[in-house]
């Protein structure tokens, strides 16, 4: 069934556009003056003002490697993260501990651990898959660089970002 929409009956004054135009001008000038005198809440000025303090605990920023409270690296170079990484951003070159050394039980450590931050999609799968709780996503979100090489985080950089993380990690425990 056809619905007949009643067109509004405009008066001559309304059809002259002037009341609507003046009303619009009034609204815009109100906004102009309010912003001019700083009464309007405006966007955060990003590089100067950051929202770091508002970041939640579970924020997924750049992946980093962490050390334990004895300043020993937690990563055992199992390469699970390398395999699960969807964009294949992680490259690990494992190395073996000497069999007569104090850490022979651990067997492996990463000789090289690179995360290509151009590829990384911040999915957090590496953190989830890590059996040794060695890789964590931190709150750094502004990863920049001028070259591609600069955007690849090597082991040193990853530990620098990651820092130390306390907590039970079984693999270093001799008694276990």
């Amino acid at each position: 069934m056809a619905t007949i929409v009643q067109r509004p009956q405009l008066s001559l004054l309304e059809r002259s556009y002037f009341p609507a135009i003046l009303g619009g001008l009034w609204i815009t000038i109100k906004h102009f003056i309010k912003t001019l005198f700083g009464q309007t809440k405006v966007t955060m000025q990003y590089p100067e003002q950051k929202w770091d303090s508002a970041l939640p605990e579970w924020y997924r920023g750049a992946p980093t490697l962490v050390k334990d409270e004895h300043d020993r690296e937690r990563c055992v170079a199992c390469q699970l993260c390398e395999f699960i990484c969807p964009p294949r951003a992680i490259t690990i070159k494992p190395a073996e501990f000497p069999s007569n050394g104090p850490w022979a039980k651990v067997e492996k450590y990463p000789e090289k651990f690179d995360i290509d931050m151009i590829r990384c999609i911040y999915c957090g799968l590496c953190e989830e898959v890590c059996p040794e709780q060695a890789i964590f996503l931190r709150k750094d979100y502004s990863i920049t660089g001028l070259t591609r090489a600069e955007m690849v985080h090597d082991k040193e950089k990853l530990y620098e970002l990651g820092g130390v993380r306390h907590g039970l990690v079984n693999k270093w425990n001799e008694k276990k």
Partner: protein
Amino acid sequence: MSLMPSLDLFLQPEIFLVWTSALKTFVILGVVLTMVAYSVWAERKVSAFIQDRIGPNRVGWAGLIQPVADGVKLLLKENFVPGGVNKFFFSIAPSLAMIPSILVLAVLPFGSSLFGVPMVIANLDIGVLWVFAVSSLGVYGIVLAGWASNSKYPFLGGIRSSSQMISYELSLGLSVVPVFMITGTLNLGEIVQYQVDNGWMVFPAWFQTGAGLRDMTTESGSMFGLDLGKTLLWIPMMISFVVFIIAMFAETNRIPFDLPEAEQELVGGYHTEYSSMRFALFFLGEYAAMIAGSGVIVTLFLGGWSLPFVPDGSQGWFWGLVNIGTFFAKIAAIIFFFLWVRWTLPRFRFDQLMKLGWYVFFEVALINIFLTAGILAYLQS
């Protein structure tokens, strides 16, 4: 001793005219081109404030060096010429769009006088006609740009622009006829002088005593007051002012009449194919046209360089400078109005635009002429 003959040479009437005119031209060009650059800044800032944003604030304090950065960017870009264009017209079209708006400035009285030199570059007796003649040439730049680009969207923009400009030039020209009927002159300087004596065209609430018909007191100086004639003439003046300012919006391709470059429909309109400095000439030419148009509005309706109770340049160089400052301040106010309207109103549809021009403003301007004639005849009887 050796300096004196050269000074005398500079003060000979012809030589004096030449170098003062050259000086005025350079100063005005400098001031206006700076205003053009900063009206781009103002546009961005005003639009930001109206939309609850901050706008450019990185280059310099409050983004004040932004125009320089924009200019450098545009200069350093590749000046690309697409294949299949008519190279000659493609190249001269941007200049043709810019030149007329600058030529208009030649006849605008931008101040009273400074050290006895009248502050107008060319004091033509038919200054207003010069303004219309030159600004009517501005359409060539746009039409040729649209045609020479050999592309659909620029072509549509050019066609729209020419039909729009032809339509609105009529109302533009007819709406100022009442001003000439009242002042009895086409000379812009004399029109301003009339407004100094009798109050601004849109706000005739004061007058200079001892001038013309309305000599009501014997005291000298500016006075507030209205008489019957001024009150009656105020009505056609307001109609003229409104029609003129709307037609000026159409002439300068500003929203709500910016159909030649309607981004949503025509990509960029007539300058779609342009880049680098050629694009900048179109872009800045639009602002130059806006400033020239504002100058005409100020001169014809808002009293030019005059402020009530402020003497003119014959009272000393300080007042001469104040007058010049007043003129440019008024232009800045009108430009703010242009920007304010742009960020308030939506765009007209093309048929609405044509209908408005031909069915409404043309008739209103025409009737206004008869109304003014009637009032003048009544006042003189």
